[in-house]
């Protein structure tokens, strides 16, 4: 064979032009991690019990050495109640988003890849549901579906989030599925399942992760609102929403009671939003327009 091979190219690789995720991103991830760990291992932490009322010694105190964030009007430790409250907020929001993504994501991906009638039907249905305000649906269903539990709240929020998740994942899949590499995989004989898992999934994952983060943040707000309406968990179970709501009446006496749970909630939402936003811009995923 007369070789006419041109010499192996000196390939000039394009540099990864991305700016790094940044320190603040990792601070946010760290904060989310702290929240998660504290919520999971609350029982093992050297803190007061959330219901320990201290024999009415320290009522409505500000931060001190024995109670880092102070106590409420029943003498219960605020830090401890915030940590146990994180269980409700994080439990409901992570649970609801994972459930919604499991169902909505699979349908969204499948519909966008297959197109055709199934896509048309699912998309029309999702549009109808999106026209119906989901928060109203959540309130309506929860007010009728008693007795309430964390599981029920999670399920209701998850179900009402499915149409939105479906739309987001469908749009992300659609933009990936129209790329030539999908066709290339197809003509090499890849099965639909292989294309969906090997070619499409890695490309919609950044969108999904980013949206999960922002979704979790918004579920935390929804759960908080429900707590205000008395539609969330039992009042005796501490949740951030409950804590803020209960202490509104003593706000004048002890503003710490409102400030600390509010701060806990805002910081976590900020972290989640920031993580989601950075992932989106890092992976250069354009904002999904609905």
């Amino acid at each position, binding site marked *: 064979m007369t070789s006419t091979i041109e010499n192996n190219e*000196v390939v000039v690789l394009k540099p990864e032009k991305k700016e790094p995720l940044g320190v603040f991103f990792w601070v946010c991830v760290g904060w989310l991690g702290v929240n998660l760990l504290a919520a999971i291992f609350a029982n093992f932490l050297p803190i007061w019990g959330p219901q320990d009322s201290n024999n009415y010694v320290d009522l409505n105190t500000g931060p001190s050495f024995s109670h880092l964030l102070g106590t409420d009007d029943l003498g219960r430790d605020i830090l401890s109640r915030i940590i146990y409250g994180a269980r409700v907020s994080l439990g409901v929001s992570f649970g609801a988003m994972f459930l919604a993504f499991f169902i909505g994501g699979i349908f969204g991906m499948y519909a966008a890849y297959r197109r055709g009638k199934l896509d048309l039907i699912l998309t029309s249905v999702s549009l109808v549901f999106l026209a119906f305000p989901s928060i109203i649906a959540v309130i309506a269903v929860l007010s009728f579906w008693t007795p309430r539990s964390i599981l029920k709240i999670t399920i209701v929020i998850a179900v009402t989030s499915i149409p939105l998740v479906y739309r987001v994942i469908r749009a992300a899949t659609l933009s990936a599925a129209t790329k030539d590499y999908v066709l290339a995989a197809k003509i090499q004989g890849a099965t639909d399942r292989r294309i969906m898992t090997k070619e499409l999934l890695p490309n919609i994952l950044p969108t999904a992760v980013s949206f999960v983060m922002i979704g979790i943040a918004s579920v935390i707000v929804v759960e908080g609102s429900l707590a205000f309406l008395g539609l969330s968990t039992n009042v005796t179970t501490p949740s951030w929403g409950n804590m803020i709501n209960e202490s509104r009446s003593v706000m004048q006496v002890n503003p710490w009671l409102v400030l600390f749970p509010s701060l806990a909630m805002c910081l976590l939402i900020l972290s989640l939003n920031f993580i989601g936003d950075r992932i989106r811009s890092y992976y250069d995923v354009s904002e999904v327009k609905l």
Partner: protein
Amino acid sequence: MSSSPILVVKNLTTTFITGRGRLPAVGGVSFELNADETLGIVGESGSGKTVLSRTIMGLQPRSNVELGGSVQLLGHEIVHASEDELRTIWGTEVSMVFQDPMTSLNPVMTIGKQISESLRVRLGMSKADAKVRAIDLLKLVGIPSAEERYDAYPTQLSGGMRQRVVIAIALSCSPQLLLADEPTTGLDVTIQAQILNLIEELKSKEKMAVILVTHDLGVVATRTDRIIVMYAGRIVEMGRTRDVFFNHRMPYTRALLESTPKVSNPSHTRLITIPGRPPDLYNLDGGCAFAPRCAYATDQCRQEAPSLQEANSDGHLFACWNPLPVGTSPLNQQNSNEPNGASNEQ
């Protein structure tokens, strides 16, 4: 040809300051353009031809860009002019046709409005006058049933028609210089021929100078008076069109010519290729930027960048330490089927 130049570019540099360092997109470019001339600027992607044309126009964004040298257009200095000053020149003295007519027209404005807008803002015409003139312009660039098309949106037109609209906008305030940046890339061959003929026709009708920026040697071969060949942000050869095609001295010009497939080639003609890839502008060393791909490169080429030198008195310049002999252009031996002696395959 001896009329005084309308455009004088002297030692122009455009350097982008990016996260990776300094990117010298255009480095030390000098040339002149006469009032009735058509100048072609040819180069591959990354050669700096588009940046050059935008810098001449003054359209380069100001942040993270370092400009040097001078561009004198009809007595106005462009390089350090403020946008307010430039605005008085744009449209009336120089205007531009962009590569992609789809993206260079505002999708939510009717084409008529986009033309008459210039007339009203720049020339202070009344609404009614501007409309009449805009329709005239649409007719001038060959758009059928111009009155009806006046109210059309860009998406309702084909690519060729859109490019005609862009040309109409560019001509609306009778500029003396038209900068056309890849005006036919992405258009079909028959439409490309129509657009190039249109520009040529309007050039003589409107008495303006034209700069035709392109990657395609075919576009400039028969429609320009002079050609500039760019590589890595610099002029490597410049001269009258025939000189560049037939008497080029710079090996890159030849390589470009040889690697372009030709309709007149018999089928299965093996193209003579340039090995390697265009240089990484971030890491230019002191030598000739083409040296790593050049078959004739010597140590001198790798160490010292050649400057432009005269090939003849007609303004034919080239930048090379080991220029090709005169008259060895592949175009001169087109009918001999012998393989070219100067094969630079490695």
